[in-house]
C-alpha cells in the first residue's frame, strides 16, 4: 500500500507531457493537483485509523544480499509528514499552473515536482536507511532541477549548483554514517535499530556516526554554517520555494533527526550539537531577516530561523520540547507555505516583491489578503491561531532550559512578529504605491490553496484541545521513542508566558515602525566577511576548478605521445616497483630449448615487426603487419589452438585489404620525428618490452590453477553438447560475454556509418 502510494507520483510523471498536450497551464495544474489531493485523503484515513501498537513495517525484497529492502513504516511521524507533503502539495500543484501559465516549461515543472514529491514521501515512509538515502539524494537532485528551473539565468544556475553541492556533500556524509551504522548493527532497518539501540549506543564508532548523520541533516535543513544555500535557492519559481524550501525538503533534515532521536537521545554529543547548531541557526536566521526587503528573502531567512528552532527543540529532548517541535513544525508548514504562495500571487499581479513599494492590496486582492493576514497572525503567534499554541509551548520549553537559548528564542520571536507584519500585513494595509503592474486578484487556482491552508491554521488553533492534541500525540511518540501524553489547549489563563508573548508582539511592531533604518543595516560586519560560509564555499569551488584546470592542461595537452608515456610510466613504476622488491630472479623458469618450427615462427614474427618499424612506405608497413600476423597464427597452430589460427588468418587477410583500400593512394611516409625523439621512444618502448617479458616469466613462477580448464573439459560434451570446447565456451558457457563482444562490433559499425555520414554532411 505505502509502496504504491510512493510510486504514484513517479508513475504519473512520464505521462505529464501527454496530458500537457491536451490541457495547458492552469487546467494541467487542476488535473495534476488531484494526485497529491487523493494521496492526502488516503494518508488522512490511515492517520485517523492509526493504532500505534500495531504498526508493522511493509517489506518487499529488493537487494537481499546487502540487506536493502523496500521497507516502509507508516507511524504517526511519517503520516504527519505525508499529510504536510501532500496537503501543501495540493495547494502548490494548483497554484503553479496558474502562476507559470501555458507552455512546455510548465510541463517540465510538473515532471520535476512529481518526482520530488515521490522522493519526499519515500524519505518519510522508508524503514530502511539505504532506501531513505536513495530518496534523500533524489530530493537533492530534483531540487537542483527546480532551483535551476530558469536555467537561462546565471544566478539560477549558481544557486542550483550550490544547493546540489552542499546537500550532496551532506548526502555523502549521511551515506557514510548509514554504512557505519550497518557495520555496527548489521542491519539497515530503522525499526530494528530503534527497538534495540544499545549496540549502537555502546559502540566505539558512536561519535563518528553521530557527526556523519548530523552532517547530512544539517546540510539538508540549512543549519549554520551550511545555511547560505537556502536564501540563494529563492531563485526558484515561488511555488518551488513554498514547497521545497519551506514546507518539505528542508524539513527532511529535521525529520531525520526526529526519526533517529530515540536511538541517540540522552547522548551528550547528540543533544548538545542539536541545541548549539539549532540555536545558532535560529538566531542567525532571525538576525539576517532584519534587513530584507524582498518578500521571498524575508520568508527564507525566517524559515532558517524556524528550522534552527526545530532542531534545537529536538536537542532539548524532553517530552514537552518534542511536542513543541511537532506543533511548531505543523504550524510553520501551514503559515509559511501560505505566505510564500501569497508572495507569489502578489508578485504575479503587481510585478514586484519589494515590500517598500507594496501596499493597499486589501481591496484589490481580497482572498489573497485574507490568506496572508491569517497566516501572518499564525506566524506572529496571535490567538487563536495554531502558531499561538506553538509559540506558547516554545516559550514554556525555553524558560526551563539554558538562559542563553531562552534569550535567543525571545530574540527570534520578536523578529518573527516583525517579519510576519512585513510579509502578511504590510502589503495589504500600507498606503498604496506605484507598482510595475496594476494589481488584480488571480483566479481560484492562485487563491484556493492559500485560503484553505491559512484556514487550516485557524481551525487547528481553535480545536487545539482535541484535533491538534490527537494529531500531535500520534506524531510525537515515535520521536520520543515512547508513548507521550499530550494535552494541548488554546488558553492557559493569564500567566508569565502570555506576558512574554505580548511583549514580543509589541517589540516586533516596534521594529516594524523603524524598518527603514533596519533596511540600511550592513550585510556583514568588517572582518567577519572573510569567515562567511558562502565566501568560503566560493573559494573552495574556485580552488577546485583551478586545480582541475591545471591538472587537465598538464595531462591532457593534446599530444597523444604524452598520454601514452604517462600511462606506461605509471604501469612501470607500480608493477616494476613490485617486481623490484618481490621478484626473485633465481626462481624464474628459463628454458631456452627451441624447436625448428618455433624458430621459424619466431623469425617470421620478428622480421615482420622490424620491417614495419623501419618501412619507408605505408604499403610495406602494412604487409609487414600481415607477416607478423601469419607468424602469430603459426604459434597458435603449434600450441593447440586451431580455432585461433583460423580466425587469425582470415582477420589478417581482411585487415591488409582494409589498409590497402584506405591508404594506397596516399604519399610516402614523411619524416616527422627527429633522431632524439626516436631514441627516447625506443628507450620507453624497449623498457616496456623487457617488462612484459619479465611479467610472463614471473607468472610462471606461480602454480597454475587448472580448475576452470577441467570444468570446461568435463562439461563441454554433457552440458554444451559440443566437442569443440573453445566454441562451446563462446556460444554457451560464456555466451553473455560473446553477446557483449558482438555488440561492440555492432557499435563499431554504427560508428563507421556515423563517421561517413558526418563528413559527407559537413563537407
Amino acid at each position, binding site marked *: 500500500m505505502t509502496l504504491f502510494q510512493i510510486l504514484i507520483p513517479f508513475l504519473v510523471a512520464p505521462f505529464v507531457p501527454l496530458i500537457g498536450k491536451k490541457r495547458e497551464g492552469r487546467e494541467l495544474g487542476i488535473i495534476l493537483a488531484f494526485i497529491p489531493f487523493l494521496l492526502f485523503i488516503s494518508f488522512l484515513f490511515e492517520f485517523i485509523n492509526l493504532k500505534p501498537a500495531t504498526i508493522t513495517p511493509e517489506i518487499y525484497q529488493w537487494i537481499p544480499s546487502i540487506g536493502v529492502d523496500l521497507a516502509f513504516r507508516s507511524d504517526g511521524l511519517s503520516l504527519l509528514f505525508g499529510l504536510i507533503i501532500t496537503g501543501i502539495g495540493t495547494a502548490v500543484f494548483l497554484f503553479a499552473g496558474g502562476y507559470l501559465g501555458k507552455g512546455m516549461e510548465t510541463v517540465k515543472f510538473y515532471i520535476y515536482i512529481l518526482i520530488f514529491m515521490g522522493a519526499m514521501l519515500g524519505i518519510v515512509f522508508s524503514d530502511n536507511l539505504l532506501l531513505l538515502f536513495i530518496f534523500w539524494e533524489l530530493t537533492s537532485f530534483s531540487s537542483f532541477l527546480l532551483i535551476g528551473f530558469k536555467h537561462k539565468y546565471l544566478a539560477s544556475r549558481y544557486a542550483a549548483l550550490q544547493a546540489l553541492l552542499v546537500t550532496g556533500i551532506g548526502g555523502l556524509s549521511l551515506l557514510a554514517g548509514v554504512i557505519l551504522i550497518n557495520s555496527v548493527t548489521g542491519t539497515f532497518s530503522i525499526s530494528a535499530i530503534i527497538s534495540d539501540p544499545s549496540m549502537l549506543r555502546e559502540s566505539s564508532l558512536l561519535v563518528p556516526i553521530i557527526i556523519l548523520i548530523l552532517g547530512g541533516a544539517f546540510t539538508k535543513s540549512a543549519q549554520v554554517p551550511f545555511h547560505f544555500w537556502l536564501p540563494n535557492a529563492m531563485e526558484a519559481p515561488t511555488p518551488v520555494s513554498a514547497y521545497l524550501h519551506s514546507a518539505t525538503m528542508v524539513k527532511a533534515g529535521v525529520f531525520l533527526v526526529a526519526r533517529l532521536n530515540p536511538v541517540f537521545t540522552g547522548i551528550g554529543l547528540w543533544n548538545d550539537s542539536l541545541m548549539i547548531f539549532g540555536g545558532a541557526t535560529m538566531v542567525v536566521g532571525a538576525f539576517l531577516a532584519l534587513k530584507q526587503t524582498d518578500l521571498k528573502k524575508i520568508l527564507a531567512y525566517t524559515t532558517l530561523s524556524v528550522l534552527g528552532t526545530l532542531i534545537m527543540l529536538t536537542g532539548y529532548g524532553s517530552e514537552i520540547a518534542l511536542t513543541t517541535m511537532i506543533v511548531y513544525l505543523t504550524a510553520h508548514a501551514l503559515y509559511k507555505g501560505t505566505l510564500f504562495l501569497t508572495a507569489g500571487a502578489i508578485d504575479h499581479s503587481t510585478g514586484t516583491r519589494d515590500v517598500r513599494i507594496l501596499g493597499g492590496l486589501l481591496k484589490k486582492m481580497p482572498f489573497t489578503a485574507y490568506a496572508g493576514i491569517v497566516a501572518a497572525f499564525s506566524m506572529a503567534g496571535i490567538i487563536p491561531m495554531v502558531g499561538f499554541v506553538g509559540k506558547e509551548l516554545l516559550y514554556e520549553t525555553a524558560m526551563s532550559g539554558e538562559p542563553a537559548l531562552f534569550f535567543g528564542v525571545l530574540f527570534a520571536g520578536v523578529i518573527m512578529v516583525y517579519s510576519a507584519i512585513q510579509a502578511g500585513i504590510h502589503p495589504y494595509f500600507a498606503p498604496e504605491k506605484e507598482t510595475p503592474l496594476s494589481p488584480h486578484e488571480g483566479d481560484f487556482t492562485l487563491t484556493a490553496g492559500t485560503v484553505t491552508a491559512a484556514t487550516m491554521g485557524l481551525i487547528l488553533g481553535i480545536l487545539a484541545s482535541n484535533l491538534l492534541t490527537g494529531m500531535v500525540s500520534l506524531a510525537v511518540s515515535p520521536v520520543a521513542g515512547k508513548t507521550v501524553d499530550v494535552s494541548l489547549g488554546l488558553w492557559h489563563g493569564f500567566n508569565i508566558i502570555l506576558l512574554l508573548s505580548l511583549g514580543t508582539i509589541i517589540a516586533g511592531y516596534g521594529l516594524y515602525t523603524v524598518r527603514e533604518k533596519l533596511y540600511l543595516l550592513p550585510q556583514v560586519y568588517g572582518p567577519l566577511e572573510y569567515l562567511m560560509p558562502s565566501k568560503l564555499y566560493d573559494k573552495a569551488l574556485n580552488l577546485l576548478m583551478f586545480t582541475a584546470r591545471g591538472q587537465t592542461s598538464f595531462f591532457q595537452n593534446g599530444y597523444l605521445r604524452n598520454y601514452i608515456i604517462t600511462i606506461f610510466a605509471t604501469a612501470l613504476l607500480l608493477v616494476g616497483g613490485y617486481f623490484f622488491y618481490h621478484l626473485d630472479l633465481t626462481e624464474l623458469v628459463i628454458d631456452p630449448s627451441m624447436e625448428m618450427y618455433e624458430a621459424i615462427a619466431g623469425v617470421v614474427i620478428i622480421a615482420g615487426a622490424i620491417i614495419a618499424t623501419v618501412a619507408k612506405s605505408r604499403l610495406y608497413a602494412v604487409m609487414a603487419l600481415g607477416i607478423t600476423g601469419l607468424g602469430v597464427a603459426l604459434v597458435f597452430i603449434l600450441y593447440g589452438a586451431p580455432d585461433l589460427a583460423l*580466425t587469425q588468418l*582470415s*582477420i589478417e587477410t*581482411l585487415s591488409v585489404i582494409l589498409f590497402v583500400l584506405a591508404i594506397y593512394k596516399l604519399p610516402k611516409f614523411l619524416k616527422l620525428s627527429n633522431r632524439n625523439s626516436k631514441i627516447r621512444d625506443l628507450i620507453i618502448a624497449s623498457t616496456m618490452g623487457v617488462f612484459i617479458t619479465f611479467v610472463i616469466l614471473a607468472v610462471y613462477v606461480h602454480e597454475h590453477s587448472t580448475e576452470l580448464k577441467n570444468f570446461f573439459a568435463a562439461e563441454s560434451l554433457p552440458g554444451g*553438447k559440443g566437442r569443440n570446447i573453445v566454441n*562451446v565456451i563462446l*556460444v554457451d558457457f560464456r555466451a553473455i560475454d560473446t553477446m557483449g563482444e*558482438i555488440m561492440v*562490433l555492432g557499435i*563499431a559499425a554504427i560508428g563507421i556509418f556515423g563517421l561517413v555520414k558526418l563528413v559527407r554532411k559537413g563537407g
Partner: protein
Amino acid sequence: MSTLILRTAVKYIIPGMFLFSLFLLFRGHNEPGGGFVGGLVAAAAIILYTLANGVEKAEKMLHVSPQKLIAAGLLVALLAGITGWIAGKEFMTGIWLDLPIPVMGKFGTPVLFDIGVYLLVTGMVVKVIFTLADTREEGNQ
C-alpha cells in the same frame, strides 16, 4: 583491379566460399570453425566480389544492406538468449531440440547464437569494406 580474368574467376569461386563459410559455421560446435570464422569467410567472399565488380554491383548482389545484417545478427543472438528465459531458465541457458538433424547434428539455441554471430560479423566487415571501397562520393566532392 577489376580484370576480366578476376571477374570470371570470382563468379565460380564465390558460391564455393559461401558454402565453405556455412560449413565452418555449422561444424564449429564439434570441429575447428564457428560463427566468427564463418562470418569472416563469408565477408571475404563478398569482398572478393566487390574488388572485381565495384561496390555498386556488390550491393545489388547482396540484396540486403550490411546494417540490416548487423541488426539481424544481434536480434538472432538475443533471441537465442531469451529462449532460455521463456523456457523458465536463466538468460542464455542452452536449450536443445531432441531430434538429430543431418549435417549439423543437433540443433539448439547455442547454434542459433552462433548464427547470430555469423550474420553480425559478416555485416560488420562488409560495412567497413563498402565504406572504404566506395569511390562514388569522392567524385562529388
